[in-house]
């Protein structure tokens, strides 16, 4: 029954969302590529660094007493 439903669903999907008609690229993308190559790369901060910064901020908020000790060690 499930297999039959699966086949029916595939058929229905194909009837609803038909394949893309092959489209030719309408223009040369090289000029866009040159612009992209000239653009300076944005600096991406990894999620781990954000998490570390959030953790440190939270720790400083919860235990403000450690701030002088932290400054002393910097």
């Amino acid at each position, binding site marked *: 029954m499930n297999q039959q439903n*699966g086949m029916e*669903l595939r058929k229905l*999907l194909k009837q*609803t969302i*038909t*394949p893309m008609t092959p*489209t030719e*690229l309408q223009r*040369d993308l090289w000029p866009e590529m040159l612009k992209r190559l000239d653009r300076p790369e944005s600096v991406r901060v990894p999620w781990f660094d954000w998490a570390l910064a959030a953790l440190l901020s939270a720790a400083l908020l919860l235990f403000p007493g450690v701030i002088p000790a932290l400054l002393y060690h910097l």
Partner: protein
Amino acid sequence: MELLERFAAGDPEAFETLFRGHQKQVYAWIGRIVRDSGIAEDLTVETFWRIYRSRARFDPAGNFGAWAYRIGTNVALDHLRRSRRETELPENLAADSKPDPAVRRETREHIHQAFSQLPARYRLVATLALIEEEPYEKIADAAGIPVSLVKIRVFRAVRMLRKKLTSMGLELGARR
């Protein structure tokens, strides 16, 4: 020095030659996944940007086309992940393809909605395998996963769609 060796060594002219030689195929492949010509153009440029950045890791003895397809697939997958919550299937889908008039409008809307809510990695393989009817081997190569995993993802995508459609009140077997 061969073209691919020059590219790997950072020769801009070699990169331009490869870009011009492969942009159409990469664009067409990405277009099948994202189903929007404007987005496909942007993602094609992004793909070649990543290719250029990774040139030092490319083995000149390898297949540049297959490598470009794989990076293009990853770029398209990233796009599907980002856009999943923002968009339904693109509007110009209707212009590019004509759905079967025998299928009711409501049914079509439900299917579009359910399909657009699939997780990106399932939507990727479902689009390529079920709609575009690309061979599993080609999808596996492009996605960098084993053929067996492609089959599993297609199977799971169909199961998810069925569940979703049932929850929407669309009974398969009593449709249209």
